[in-house]
């Protein structure tokens, strides 16, 4: 019998049979990992199995490639804390759906686990929009598509970085990028180290990360960006308008 214990964030809960559920967790050591929870559709497990909750997971299976069984205990009920805030709920769902659809199974991504935890904790703060953008950049980086926002791709300087090249994912300075501004993606000030964030910079950030998520993660699988991610982007667009 193979067995491990880990902490995990609930990403998805799918009914299985009449009473059980297949639960996907983003675990600190084990990465995105599924398991069967007996009684997972029941009243006792309902408060535990809300997406975004942090749980203590114990997984057992006869062979490593089996689905296996989870025994879960709630460590922190983040979902309940966010239920009164419509925007935070959308952001939470966007983050878990992106993790569940983009991360490979059973590969450790401790950075994205800790980043996700930090994001979820920040979702009831005033600056969660900026944290969300940084979390998507981290996700891209963990998937191997990190953006280089430190130096200008055209001249190597890091002075007045204002754009990102959609081709290379590298930052471009204001002077070098001005003639091609219509072809480049705007780099929000708070990511270049100069801005203070706010709705319009968050909207730019959503466009930036959305572009690379679509191009590098979802388009190769012939899938669109998740609908909830699009709704979150629309929400920021209307706030910026």
């Amino acid at each position, binding site marked *: 019998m193979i067995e491990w214990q880990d902490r995990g964030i609930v990403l998805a809960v799918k009914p299985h049979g009449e009473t059980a559920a297949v639960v996907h967790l983003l675990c600190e050591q084990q990465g995105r990992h599924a398991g069967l929870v007996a009684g997972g559709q029941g009243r006792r497990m309902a408060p535990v199995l*809300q997406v975004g909750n942090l749980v203590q997971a114990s997984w057992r299976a006869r062979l490593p490639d089996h689905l296996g069984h989870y025994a879960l205990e709630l460590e922190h009920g983040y979902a309940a804390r966010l239920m009164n805030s419509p925007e935070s709920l959308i952001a939470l769902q966007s983050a878990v759906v992106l993790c569940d659809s983009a991360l490979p199974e059973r590969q450790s991504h401790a950075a994205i686990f800790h980043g996700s935890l930090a994001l979820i904790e920040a979702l009831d703060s005033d600056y969660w929009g900026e944290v969300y953008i940084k979390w998507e950049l981290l996700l891209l980086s963990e998937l191997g598509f990190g953006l280089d926002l430190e130096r200008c791709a055209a001249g190597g300087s890091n002075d007045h970085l204002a754009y990102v090249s959609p081709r290379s994912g590298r930052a471009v300075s204001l002077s070098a990028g001005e003639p091609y501004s219509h072809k480049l993606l705007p780099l929000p000030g708070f990511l270049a180290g100069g801005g203070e964030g706010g709705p319009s910079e968050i909207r730019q950030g959503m466009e930036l990360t959305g572009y690379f998520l679509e191009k590098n993660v979802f388009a190769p699988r012939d899938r669109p960006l998740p609908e909830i991610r699009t709704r979150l982007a629309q929400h920021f667009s209307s706030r910026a308008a």
Partner: protein
Amino acid sequence: MSLSDIDRMIQLLARLPGLGPRSARRATLSLLQRREDLLRPLADALVRAADNIQQCEICGNLDDSDPCRLCRDGRRDPALICVVEEIGDLWALERSGVFKGRYHVLGGTLSALDGRGPEQLNLSGLWKRAEHPDVKEVVLALSATVDGQTTAHYITERLAELPVEVTRLGQGVPVGGALDYLDDGTLMAAFRARRPAGG
């Protein structure tokens, strides 16, 4: 009756929620032993239900007439619409006898994970009903889950432009609930929804 008919009966009964092959066999045996007083009336009731039960075009409830008897009942308050996820929730509220208005069954909740958007729910009917000048309050009786509350926020946002009050059910300590057995989320909701004692 041949053996295969019995098997077929067991197979079909085993598909019902709460029944497995073993309990389906027990139910089959019981039905066959009480052929006249149970099996035939049940078979007749099933055939009648299959022929007559339909979905109410107004609220989404199931009944043998369209509009359903709840929508036709003149004693129910037309100013109140209670929005529920499933017909089972409507039945639960009716059993309690606590609500005397009209209902609206969504047929589920928005779900980011399952890709279920507003167009998959019975929402267009709700927008039309809420525009009616008689309607004063829409009560959102949706589950206290991430999906349920996302749906509640979506409906609240859409109805904000209309002159209707949008309310939702209280959340907190259940009847008979001891505090040390409650989960953190319920306790948090209960504290948020606290009100003056004696009020």
